[in-house]
Each structure stands twice: as structure tokens, then as C-alpha cells.
């Protein structure tokens, strides 16, 4: 069968002295991969098991929101921006309402502002619970996901009672809100705060104190604070890198200056810190909600004197809000018309994902998902 003896005709490649010669390999992660929560592709270059280069390929969900906004008036834009970060729809819409009110100089009734804060914080918890659950799933722990959806269901039911929506709320209006809270809402909300606070301990027990979880996340994917700022990274990821930047605290909007809360920070900026900061942010949100319950006044939810047409005066303004995943801001350029001349969406996930080429090189393939999952992002928020 073989001419000659075994091994004859086979060229023997002898590696150079010292290390074994290796060859680089290019590997595609995604666009369909569970850890990307949508369609994000990462092209990684491997040397053995070690990643040497990573390039995220985005745009699979680009829907041209900024162009669409130019063809819609301000009321319609509120419904539109619900959809870029679909896990924190209320946080998005409150930003647009605030910037138009700021440009028009509209006075919002205090009750509406307090309700906005209440909803924004519940929405933040809704978003964070999703990532608390899914991050466990990515590391092989099934249970946290079920727990997260158990709590999410309760919160969604609460928000549905007031807004009518479970995902896209469209509850804000320029000047105030669509409806007042239904009867019994605050009592239910109070009960839910206690419930969620109690059940949060489940996650702490399952993940934060879990030896396997710690081994897989501590020291993995470390992001220094300076680099994070350079990339424009915000939200829990920046806070995990030790920088207590949160526009609720540094430049309070709504009534965040009238409530007590802290900005949790991490010390190492690794995957574990990012997850831990997310967990602590839920506790802080619950703290804010409790204070809102006590402070919410009676009164109207829409100004008595609303202009017939909503037209932002000429000029440009950038307003940022601390959304669930980081700084969500809108840069509005108006020519005095009833629709914006230009609306730039500064979304947190876009800047956060742009940091991936820094974060991934040097780590091992088995850690890839642990790191990618800890850069909490929503693909709709990246691509817009």
C-alpha cells in the first residue's frame, strides 16, 4: 500500500529551537451566539488558545433611527426611542422628553417627575435582572435565569398596570406623562420592593458566593479606569473600574438630587466587579424607589398650560441621562420646527462595545464568553 516503509515520504517539520512554532487562526464568533444577546459578530485571531486580536463587527441591527427621527415630530420620537435599548425603554424615552422640555423651557409638574423617577428605577431593575440572570447562564448556571424572569414578570406586571406596555412603555409625554398611576399602584410597588430585595439574596447566594463563579470571573478581563474613560465607557462597566461617574449624582436630572443613594464601584475592573456593581445598583435603585414612595405628591401630571404644537426653539443641546447600561444622551439640533433637524443618539452600548478590541486580546478562549457577557450590552443599542 505505501511505497517504502512507514513514515517514508512524510516530511518531518521540526520547529525552531525553543518554543513550538504556532500558526494564527481567525475565528468567527457570531453573528448568532447566545452570549451576544442579539446579532453581534466578533472576529478573533487566535494563537493557540490565546486571543491576539479581536474586532467586533456590528451593524446587523442598524435600523437608521437617527434618520427616522428627522421625519417625525417630538411626540412620535418618544415612541421611536423606546426601541433602541429595548430592555430599558422608559429610560430612553425620559431622555427625549427631558431634552425637549429643557429646550422649550417647559415646567413639568412635580408629581410627573416623581413618577418618571419611579418608573425609570423600576425599568433599571428590569434591565439589570436580565443581565444578572443571563450572565449566570453564560457561565453554565441555569437557575439564575429562571429566578430573574420570575422577578421580571412581577415588575413587568406592575409597570403594565400603569403604562399598558410590558416592553415598550411609551408612558412619557413632552411636559409630563400619559396617565396618572392607577389606584393601589404605590402599595403594590411597596410590596414589590420588599419582595425583590428579599429575592436578591438568592442571586448573591447562587453566584456572588459561588466558588466556580468567582474562579471564572475574578481577574478575568480587567479594564483600567483611564482606558474606560478614553473609550467613552459609562455605566456599570466604568463604575466597576473604580470611577464613581453617574449623571444621577454628578449632574442630577429629574429629582435625583432629593434622594439618597450611592454609586457602587469596583476595585479591579474585572468581570466579577462588573457583575457585582450591577447587583449593587439594583439595591440602590430599590433604595431610591422607597424614597420616591414617601415623597410623591398629589397633583396634575401634565402642565396646565401646554402649547398646542410642540416646537423646540432653534439651537442645539446635549442632554445625558444615566440609563441602565450607561450614559444615554441625545444631541438635538433644532431649527425651530416641530421635528428635529438632527438628533444624535449617544447610546451607552455603542461606546461600551467599542472597547472590546482592548479587552479581549491576551485572554484565553474559554474566558471569552465570561468577558463578553460581562460587557453588558443590548445589540439594538449598539446599532441603533
Amino acid at each position, binding site marked *: 500500500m505505501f511505497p517504502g516503509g512507514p513514515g517514508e515520504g512524510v516530511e518531518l517539520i521540526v520547529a525552531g529551537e525553543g518554543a513550538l512554532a504556532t500558526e494564527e487562526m481567525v475565528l468567527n464568533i457570531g453573528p448568532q451566539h447566545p452570549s451576544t444577546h442579539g446579532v453581534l459578530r466578533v472576529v478573533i485571531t487566535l494563537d493557540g488558545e490565546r486571543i491576539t486580536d479581536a474586532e467586533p463587527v456590528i451593524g446587523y441591527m442598524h435600523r437608521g433611527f437617527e434618520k427616522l427621527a*428627522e421625519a417625525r415630530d417630538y411626540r412620535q420620537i418618544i415612541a421611536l426611542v423606546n426601541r433602541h435599548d429595548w430592555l430599558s425603554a422608559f429610560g430612553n424615552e425620559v431622555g427625549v422628553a427631558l431634552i425637549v422640555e429643557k429646550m422649550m423651557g417647559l415646567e413639568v409638574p412635580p408629581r410627573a417627575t416623581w413618577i418618571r423617577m419611579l418608573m425609570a428605577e423600576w425599568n433599571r431593575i428590569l434591565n439589570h435582572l436580565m443581565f444578572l440572570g443571563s450572565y449566570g447562564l453564560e457561565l453554565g448556571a441555569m437557575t439564575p435565569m429562571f429566578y430573574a424572569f420570575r422577578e421580571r414578570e412581577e415588575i413587568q406586571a406592575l409597570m403594565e398596570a400603569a403604562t399598558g406596555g410590558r416592553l415598550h412603555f411609551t408612558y412619557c409625554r413632552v411636559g409630563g406623562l400619559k396617565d396618572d398611576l392607577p389606584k393601589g399602584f404605590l402599595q403594590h410597588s411597596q410590596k414589590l420592593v420588599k419582595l425583590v430585595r428579599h429575592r436578591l439574596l438568592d442571586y448573591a447566594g447562587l453566584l456572588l458566593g459561588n466558588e466556580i463563579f468567582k474562579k471564572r470571573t475574578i481577574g478575568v478581563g480587567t479594564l483600567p479606569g483611564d482606558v474606560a474613560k478614553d473609550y467613552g465607557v459609562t455605566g456599570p462597566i466604568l463604575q466597576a473600574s473604580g470611577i464613581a461617574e453617574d449623571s444621577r449624582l454628578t449632574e442630577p436630572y429629574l429629582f435625583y438630587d432629593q434622594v439618597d443613594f450611592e454609586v457602587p464601584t469596583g476595585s479591579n475592573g474585572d468581570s466579577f466587579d462588573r457583575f457585582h456593581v450591577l447587583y449593587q445598583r439594583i439595591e440602590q435603585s430599590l433604595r431610591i424607589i422607597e424614597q420616591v414612595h414617601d415623597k410623591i405628591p398629589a397633583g396634575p401630571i401634565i402642565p396646565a398650560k401646554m402649547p398646542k404644537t410642540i416646537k423646540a426653539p432653534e439651537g442645539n443641546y446635549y442632554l445625558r441621562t444615566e440609563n441602565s447600561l450607561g450614559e444615554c444622551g441625545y444631541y438635538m439640533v433644532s431649527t425651530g420646527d416641530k421635528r428635529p433637524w438632527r438628533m444624535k443618539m449617544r447610546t451607552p452600548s455603542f*461606546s461600551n462595545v*467599542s472597547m472590546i478590541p482592548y479587552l479581549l486580546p491576551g485572554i484565553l478562549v474559554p474566558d471569552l464568553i465570561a468577558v463578553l457577557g460581562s460587557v453588558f450590552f443590548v445589540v439594538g443599542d449598539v446599532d441603533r
Partner: protein
Amino acid sequence: MTPEEIVAHLQEVDASFVERSDIQFGQGSVWIPRDKWVAAATHLKACGRCRFDMFNFMSGVDWPDDDQIEVVAHLYSVRRQHHLNMKIRVPREGGSVPTLSGVWRGANWQERETWELFGVAFEGHPHLVKLLLPEAFEGYPLRKDFLLMTREAKEWEGREEPGPPDSSPRPGRVPSPAAHAPAHGEAP
């Protein structure tokens, strides 16, 4: 620092940094000449008083009447907690801006996005390829003369077009009235 102080400080450092400045709704903007764009950015980041350590976003605004595109970079200082809009105006055709990706790492993606959506080139950018749009996409979608695809296929009554009102071409596959209406006196 307040926006006024930042502008005054920039003028003090180098009078040629500030072409024009303006404060709207309490937010400062400076227009920086093209040849000073990178130098001014480097100063804004390194200077202890400004310390703009966060590159927030970059984008463009199309002004077809002036035949110009305005590139806006929004800076924020985590340390000092102040904002600044860095602006520059370039011609719509063949306009280019020196890249800031050597100053802030975050500028890399933001400039790629601005380039593909507005058609403003960034000189010296290390990797200027399409980011959000497919490779083969033609045109610059956020310019005012680029119509929304749905509107081009079907006109919408009571429409609010993003462009100037008379610039919209006839919807696709609809011939002009001269082509399909019978001339006066002819049998249809």
C-alpha cells in the same frame, strides 16, 4: 469650569484655537480651525484645568444651505464635570477632518460612523472602513438629500420629509404626468 471660562482659557492658551464660540442652553461650543483641530484636542485632554478625559460622542450635522457639514465632538470631564462641544465645518464634497483617534481611543469608532453616515473623511484614521452599514452600501444616509427608502417607494400623505420640501424626486415606477396623460385633443 463654566463654558465661558473654558472658552476664555482656550483663547488664552492659543488665540488661534477658537474660531468662534457660542453658548446655547448653558452648553458651550467652540469652532476650531482645521489646522488646530488635533492640537486643541490634545490640549483639552492633557491640560489640568480642562482635563476632558472622556470622549463622549462624535457626529455630524448636515447644512445643505451652507453646503457644509458640521462635525461635532462632545467632550466631558469626569474629574471636573464640565462639557464642551468641539465643532468644525467642512465642505460637503470632499471634506476631511484630521483624526482624533490618536488622542482618545473612543474616537476610532465614532469617526468611522461619522464617515459612513455623512461622507466626511478622517485624515490619518488607522482603519476607516464601514461600521454600521454593509460594505457595498452607496451614499451617505444622514445627509439631507438622501431620502428614506420607504418614502422613495411610496409617498406618504401628510408626509414630513427630512429634506427640503421640493427636493424629493418622483416616487419610483411612477412616470411623470406628461408621459402617461393623453395630450389635449387626443384619444386616450
